[in-house]
């Protein structure tokens, strides 16, 4: 067992974890942060994307012990009351259907807009290459990210 201290969505937790425990399972099974989902086991789908110290990571490819001392933001901590512009834009553009990929897609998109606040459609598509959606065909996801960018997302 290893001791970790990690801040998740603004709350500080100290826990004993097995060194092999994946961050996504720590979030879901230990902290009840079930907004973050798991869609694969090879870090291809991106459903589990969260921010670690402000940068997007796939939480199925990070061990909980690697998150020691970091600040994690999940979809559940993205907004304070008011929806984040990306959440708003995903709703407006109908950029989600079943919604399973959505938390990871939004967290990845937020990081994309942090590094490139005004991406072209092609840059949006390339930037979200690590996040798979089976429902939308991505058309409306691209529109939503463009809309959020136009509304001026602050990192």
């Amino acid at each position, binding site marked *: 067992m290893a001791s970790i201290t990690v801040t998740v969505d603004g709350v500080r937790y100290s826990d004993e974890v097995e060194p092999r425990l994946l961050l996504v399972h720590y979030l879901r*099974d230990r902290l009840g942060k079930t907004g973050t989902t798991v869609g694969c*086991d090879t870090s291809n789908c991106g459903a589990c994307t969260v921010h670690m110290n402000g940068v997007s990571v796939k939480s199925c490819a990070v061990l909980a012990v690697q998150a020691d001392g970091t600040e994690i933001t999940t979809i559940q901590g993205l907004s304070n009351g008011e929806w984040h512009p990306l959440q708003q834009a*995903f709703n407006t553009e109908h950029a989600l259907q079943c919604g399973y990929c959505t938390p990871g897609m939004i967290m990845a998109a937020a990081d994309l807009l942090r590094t490139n606040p005004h991406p072209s459609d092609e840059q949006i598509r390339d930037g979200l290459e690590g996040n798979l959606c089976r429902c939308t*065909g991505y058309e409306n996801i691209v529109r939503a990210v463009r809309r959020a960018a136009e509304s001026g997302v602050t990192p």
Partner: protein
Amino acid sequence: MTTDTQAAAPELGKARLRKEDARLLTGQTNWTDNIVLPGMLHMCFVRSPFAHARITSVDVSAARDVPGVIAAFSGADFADEQASLPCGWPVTEDIVMPPHPPMATDEVRYVGEAVAVVIARDRYEAADAIAAVDVNYEPLPPVLDMRAALEEGSPKVHEAGNKCYVWPFVQGDIDAAFRDAPVVVERTYRQQRLIPCAMEPRAVVASWVADEVTLWSSTQIPHVLRFALGAFFGIPEQNIRVIAPDVGGGFGSKLQVTAEEVLAVLVARKLGRPVKWTESRSEGNLTVHHGRDQWQTIRVAADRDGRLRGLDVDLLADMGAYLMLVTPGIPLLGAFMYPAIYKMDAYSFKCTGVFTTKMPTDAYRGAGRPEATFAIERIMDELAVELGMDPLELRERNWIKHEEFPYTTIATLVYDSGNYEAATARAKELFGYDELRAEQKARRESGDPVQLGIGISTFTEMCGLAPSRVVGSLRYGVGGWENATVRVLATGKIEVVTGSSAHGQGHETAWSQIVADKLGVPFEDIRVLHGDTQVSAKGMDTYGSRSLTVGGIALAGACDKVIDKAKRVAAHLMEASENDIEFVNGRLHVRGDPEQGRTIQEIALATFTAHNFPDGTEPSLDSEHTFDPENFSFPHGTHLCATEVDTETGRVTIRSYVAVDDVGKVVNPLIVEGQVHGGIVQGIAQALYEEAVYDDDGNLLTTTLADYLVPSAADLPHLTTDRTETPATTNPLGVKGVGEAGTIASTPAVVNAIVDALRPMGIDDVPMPCTPERVWRAIQSARDTGAGQNGGGQ
């Protein structure tokens, strides 16, 4: 029900933002894997590493000693209770239906088949203990190729042999149609095996309290699952509650009664504790039923002027190792669709179902109809080349004209409505068809290494499953009706209970729009409940693009009954005759006196108090309606795809994609457009990227999303979509299904475009998925044989 009031109403056709999104966007969704119950244990399965083997021993004793493990069982431990997983569609009287135990007991027939289960306190401990289960196998020869499987002397998957069934269907004089036909074109196409890959992996939680069981499952079919558990596994139906919480996509893959669901119920009963199972993606790729996997031999006879005389289709369909819920029937959903939108004199279809030692196949978005549409739309292009005609002109010469509806096709379907001319005209305009043809000509003449191809798919499909009598005549196991209940609450708010359980389709929004229209209540005042058999007792669930065309109509019918009841109460309160009460936009008044009205909300409260109520009238406005459709639904459309094919590298780029779909009246254009987008992309994925690949030993090589190429945003083009609107005449809302249309339409549009680009090189097919390597090899092969030196064609 009249269409007049709906036409005037404001909600139908409005691009309402979805009610579902609030929880989905903020991480408050209730996925099955989120569920935690006191004392809950975790299951993990030991799965066969062999495609075909005799099990000589299973020893789980060492696994029981692993720390954290509570129990471990082999198939033999459940021999008396696990029965056989049901197949609900025995398509012929003499179909071979081998037993399919949820856990194998003496023989395994595909890699991934469950042979033992370990139950532990958490998912990591359960996974650890798998290695301690000792299974001995005696390998048997795998059966991997459908054609070889039917040969004399092939190893057998099951004792009864590898042929599952033969299903013939002949209409008209097929011999006459082909005899002396001036033109006959024959092709064989391969529908590769696909993996549905819903983003949410399957998950199950089972919990018993005394003799009652609750099963949470990531399923499309809570009602059918409850029925199956009751009918085939000895659990009294009234003691079974099935809940489909938020479900993260299905695409047919969750239209199933799975081994894991049944075993969760049995294990939880045996241990007296709740159990959970959540699959990993690689486990899912192995063991979620697969789709497609057919060999299609298609032959068309035509006159020189392009008129179609007859069509002959001979299919081999891979069942995989066992028959699952509707495995044998999937290719037959295509049987009626090969003639598509075209008129002809005769049609012959035959399908042979074949067992192999692979994961069983079953429904995957479109289910039989994408395969049919692919083959007919591909061969129409081949016929056009043979005749020297423009492929759109050939289609137009043969399709059913809009004034000919309703039209009985050669496959005996009655298409109620359609306008292929309008959809095609709009698609051509958006696409710039003539300009692209001109550019293509120029690039061919200049010998541009990147060639331009234009692909056409003028598709229709049958959906809205289904008229019960019709599917009954095809030996389908259940009916095709749908049920809805409207509850009028005391405050005038509305609760809707639907038997159509959504998993991303937006029923909560669309159903609210239908009710808001019918009852004249605010959209926000309506809540839609679904996916729990204790709440929604009756239903046939969600598949086959049936929710709106069957479930939505059931809901409209329930609303009409509410209005009838409200009229009686209003008549009593206003001292008028019931026949004189009119209901307009949520208000009831006496005909000719609109001032003296009562709102539906006032009637709701009067019904709740029941202080002043008509004699002999039940104080309730709540209404239930079950709707059995009279016909299928036939959405159609024209999809046009332009591809650029690099003849030096084989790389295919979709330059533009235009889809004009006609799904009848539209409840919510946002949702319709979203369904079309997602559908198109799943069809593009079949054309360009996806294939489930087994090696020569029967091991699945594409177990992860690194190997099985579900496309990302970067792999896909922008889609241009539009609609024409030809209302269905077979339901009062005029609606048609939309869930599968895009997938059915797009695959042939893309492949036709690739082949069209390469046609001058003498290439008339590229097998799917059309990867750069396959395209490059087709080009090399054509160059080697010197085909197409004189400008191509045959």
